[in-house]
């Protein structure tokens, strides 16, 4: 792990020189200032600012309809910002569109493979479109396909692949031209847990092997944990941005739950000895402490009464999301789909008049 870390640091210093040309902080793989996107009345992205350092795995977390995909589309030069500026790999996404495209890899939410062609033909086509040096196409293809475990299947038509295999092939294809920034829009959506795990292994492996920055969106809370930093997006705005652990620490304390024979005595003892305010929830004594795991040995030593069982749970990203938006991600998705339907109805209504 330490070796991998130093590897990443070395790569960071190696690529930072290339990035001085663009706007924003030197060395930033992505730099975004006041980005806005409007679709008619609808303001999908309402002024977003952030920076992603080279070599980082940066996650965009939020419910469907929060503006994640719109933001990613603007960064990938697929949509023009209504206002604000962004640079990717040192190039402005509006003025230097082609330079941005040369340096980014894209994996979309929806499949974009040619099912009639074989896996290798799909990758070859990509390399030709991007103008990769001809003599390096074959070895590079071997590397990326081996990484995602599809080298053996290279001559099979993509139409015969399962959903998970296709997604892996898309990731391999996105890497064919050695992009400096890889954009993954919901790379694991709709996949089984096993395939999701393996895709995360590739991402981590990739980070160790290549000079690459990874920008991804997800609405799986557990996946966001893998990112170096995450931005929580809600209603077109970034409501929180930090390392997952730091975000959770901001939300507060670990939750400790204990089983005792005499709950009232336990609550009194907790108050006496530790100055902790505990309460009974769902028939058990529950309280919050900053570092739950370190507190447990002290609890056993100093409480002065028998404890039958104890459990410590950390705040989850769900708690974080809840803390910043006042709702859970699932509730928010239901709300926004209702809102979308309403907007759609209004549009249809307006169109008829």
């Amino acid at each position, binding site marked *: 792990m330490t070796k991998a870390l130093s590897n990443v640091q070395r790569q960071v210093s190696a690529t930072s020189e290339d990035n001085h040309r663009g706007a924003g902080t030197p060395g930033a793989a992505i730099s975004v200032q006041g980005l806005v996107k409007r679709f008619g009345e609808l303001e999908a992205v309402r002024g977003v600012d952030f920076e992603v350092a080279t070599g980082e795995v940066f996650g965009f977390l939020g419910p469907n309809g929060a503006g994640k995909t719109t933001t990613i589309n603007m960064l990938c*030069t*697929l949509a*023009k910002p209504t206002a604000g500026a962004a640079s990717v790999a040192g190039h402005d996404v509006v003025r230097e569109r*082609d*330079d941005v*495209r*040369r*340096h980014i890899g*894209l994996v*979309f939410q*929806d*499949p*974009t*493979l*040619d*099912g*009639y*062609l074989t896996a290798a*033909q799909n990758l*070859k*086509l*990509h*390399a*030709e*479109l*991007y*103008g*990769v*040096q001809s003599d*390096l*196409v074959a*070895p*590079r293809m*071997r*590397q990326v396909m*081996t*990484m*995602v*475990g*599809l*080298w*053996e*299947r290279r001559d099979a*038509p993509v139409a015969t692949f*399962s959903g*998970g*295999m296709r997604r*892996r092939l898309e990731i391999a*294809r996105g890497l*064919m*031209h*050695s992009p400096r920034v890889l954009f993954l829009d919901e790379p694991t959506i709709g996949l089984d847990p*096993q*395939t999701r795990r*393996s895709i995360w*292994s*590739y991402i981590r*492996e990739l980070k160790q*092997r*290549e000079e690459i920055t990874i920008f991804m969106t997800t609405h799986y809370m557990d996946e966001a944990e893998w990112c170096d930093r995450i931005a929580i997006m809600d209603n077109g705005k970034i409501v929180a941005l930090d390392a997952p652990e730091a975000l959770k620490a901001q939300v507060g304390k670990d939750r400790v739950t204990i089983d005792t024979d005499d709950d009232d005595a336990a609550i009194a003892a907790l108050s006496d000895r530790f100055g902790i305010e505990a309460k009974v929830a769902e028939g058990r004594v529950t309280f919050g402490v900053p570092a739950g795991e370190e507190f447990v040995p002290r609890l056993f030593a100093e409480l002065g009464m028998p404890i039958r069982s104890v459990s410590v749970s950390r705040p989850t990203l769900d708690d974080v999301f809840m803390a910043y938006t006042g709702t859970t991600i699932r509730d928010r998705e239901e709300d926004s789909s209702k809102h979308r339907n309403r907007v759609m109805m209004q549009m249809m209504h307006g169109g008829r008049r």
Partner: protein
Amino acid sequence: MSTTDTPPALAASQAAPDELEVVRVSVPKRSLASELRAIRIVWRRELMRYANDRLRMVTTLVQPLLFLFVLGSGLQRLASAGTHGVSLRTFIYPGILCIAVMFTAMFSAASIVWDREFGFLREMMVAPVRRSSIVIGKCLGGATVAGIQGVIVLCLAGLVNVPYDPALLLGVFGLQLLLAFSITAFGVMVAIRIKQMQSFMGVMQMIVTPMFFISGALFPANGLPGWLTVLNRIDPLTYAVDPMRRLVFSHLNISAAAKRALDPGVTWWGWHVPAVLEGAVIVALGLVMLAIAIWEFSATE
């Protein structure tokens, strides 16, 4: 299925981490060479898909052959009075050479709608190449595929008493390529605006069939009712069928009367339009439609 789905390489690469060598490549700045490379790969993809799709080779031939052999043979007796001893099949053969190309070219253009539906279009749209390269590659690919399909019909010349003369074959093939290119450009122009395959097929049906019937592929283009003459002269396919027929008939051993009746040529206000100009009309229309297609495609986000 689940056994093939588990990725084996991860374990392998962990076992031997040095085996997987990192090959670093780079993407050059956009240049004419890179655009040509993009055009070539888009063109080749059309050919690869055609080669994989044997069914399409057969299905797009059914209709032209039906017209040639069934309609041609069936109407022979009715028409024999007017054809001066020339078989009706021989007469409509040049028209069939054109429509075989036209049907295939339209089918090729439909691939843009498929690509959009299956998402592949997006892969091409985000590449660091000009949109025009993609459209040109598509048109050339469609034209090549249609040209190949045309050659299959050309091989049947002997069955309808048309000689296998090298000059004739080359001339016909050249005309077929021009037509194939223009029709593909036309199809691509339409396809870019259409999001669903079903609508595209409907639109094609609405355009292709009238174009085919009005073009004079099945009848000589003189002495028609006034309204039909007007329609015939504005139908682009007319300018492919007519030189094709002139070329084929110049290699037939038939009477002058038959030639006059069956191959009267296209006239504009009494002026006999030369074959070279007809070819130029086809090319010009193709280029205009290509330009519109490029413009449309560049405008889509």
